[in-house]
């Protein structure tokens, strides 16, 4: 068959590129998964062979990406409505929903089996549970049924450091759950700030975000309360086995800034926010990204300095 014989019926109008399938894996979310899982793995008190550590992080990332593809498959209808998501591969027509489902299921199976083989079965099972939690509990069930969707769903994004820790040690401990709690408590203020300035998106899609169900005033109060609880937790972590003086200094500064931002958001009303196009809310959202990155960076620094007798309190 020559090239000239191609007809409209044999050629799909929007054939996907490799990058479109990669975009299904939500690379930006995957980068957070990689970083937090890596910190969990390196903060563990058991040394891991670099190749096994690399494979563990890779398959945790692939598992996270697979759940992203399954999320996009299920949420294609609301992604079409929201400004922030309508350029995604399925709503834009570059990839079919069935392809995303197939890719997500295949990569989920591959990631779980390979993590169990590369690290240990417990880590593989934990990854399987995380994918199940994100896709079934959060995406299919909670996201469209309760304004607490972000709070409970945030747990899915908090599992990677726990999986990283288990991949290294093969057992549970309190420290990875502190890292879990850090991400878990951080997620609601992070997403509620986003919901405040992307306001029409969730309304249009009918997703029961707190801003839609309880109003924007209640969302501002919730951001302040959760930020206060997060600050207590983050500072308490400084005195655990994964904390230390570096972490404490970083945490004090970041929590002071984060609390200041939350108080400013709480004190504002809609007229104030609209006057400067939600500048404070946007700044708080950007700071939240730095907040999580630097907290985990500090945990990593404490653990990397331990062999030199510098990390931690000892």
């Amino acid at each position, binding site marked *: 068959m020559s*090239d*000239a014989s*191609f007809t409209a019926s044999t*050629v799909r109008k929007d*054939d*996907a*590129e*490799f*990058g479109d*399938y*990669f975009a299904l894996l939500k690379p930006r979310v995957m980068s957070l998964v990689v970083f937090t899982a890596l910190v969990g793995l390196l903060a563990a008190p058991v040394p891991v*062979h670099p*190749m*096994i550590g690399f*494979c563990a992080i*890779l398959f945790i990332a692939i598992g996270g990406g697979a759940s992203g593809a399954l999320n996009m498959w299920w949420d294609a209808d609301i992604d079409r409505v929201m400004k922030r998501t309508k350029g995604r591969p399925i709503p834009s027509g570059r990839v079919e929903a069935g392809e995303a489902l197939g890719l997500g299921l295949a990569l989920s199976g591959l990631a779980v089996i390979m993590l169990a*083989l*590369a690290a240990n079965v417990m880590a593989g099972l934990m990854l399987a549970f995380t994918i199940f939690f994100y896709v079934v509990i959060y995406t299919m069930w909670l996201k469209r049924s309760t304004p607490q969707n972000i709070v409970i769903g945030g747990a899915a994004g908090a599992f990677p450091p726990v999986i990283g820790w288990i991949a290294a040690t093969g057992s549970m401990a309190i420290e990875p759950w502190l890292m879990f709690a850090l991400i878990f408590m951080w997620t609601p203020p992070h997403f509620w700030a986003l919901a405040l300035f992307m306001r029409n998106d969730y309304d249009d899609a009918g997703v029961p975000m707190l801003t839609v169900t309880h109003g924007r005033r209640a969302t501002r109060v919730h951001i302040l309360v959760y930020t206060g609880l997060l600050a207590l937790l983050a500072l308490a972590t400084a005195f655990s086995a994964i904390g230390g003086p570096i972490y404490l200094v970083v945490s004090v500064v970041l929590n002071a800034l984060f609390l200041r931002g939350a108080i400013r958001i709480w004190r504002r009303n809609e007229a104030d926010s609209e006057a400067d196009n939600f500048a404070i809310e946007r700044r708080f959202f950007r700071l939240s990204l730095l907040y999580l990155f630097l907290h985990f960076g500090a945990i990593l620094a404490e653990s990397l300095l331990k062999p030199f007798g510098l990390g931690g309190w000892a």
Partner: protein
Amino acid sequence: MSFDKVTHELHQRRKSRNVGLGLTLAAFVVIILGLTYVKITSGAFEVPRGEVQGS
């Protein structure tokens, strides 16, 4: 009459997909190879001494 191959944007997209998939599979093979080597040399698959003597 020209025999130049007709190129279409579609071909570029398909090529990107094929090359990407090929490289991904090649990387996967290398990873499995490396992981197997590390597992074998680190003694992860060593049969306990008692079992060897007992058989």
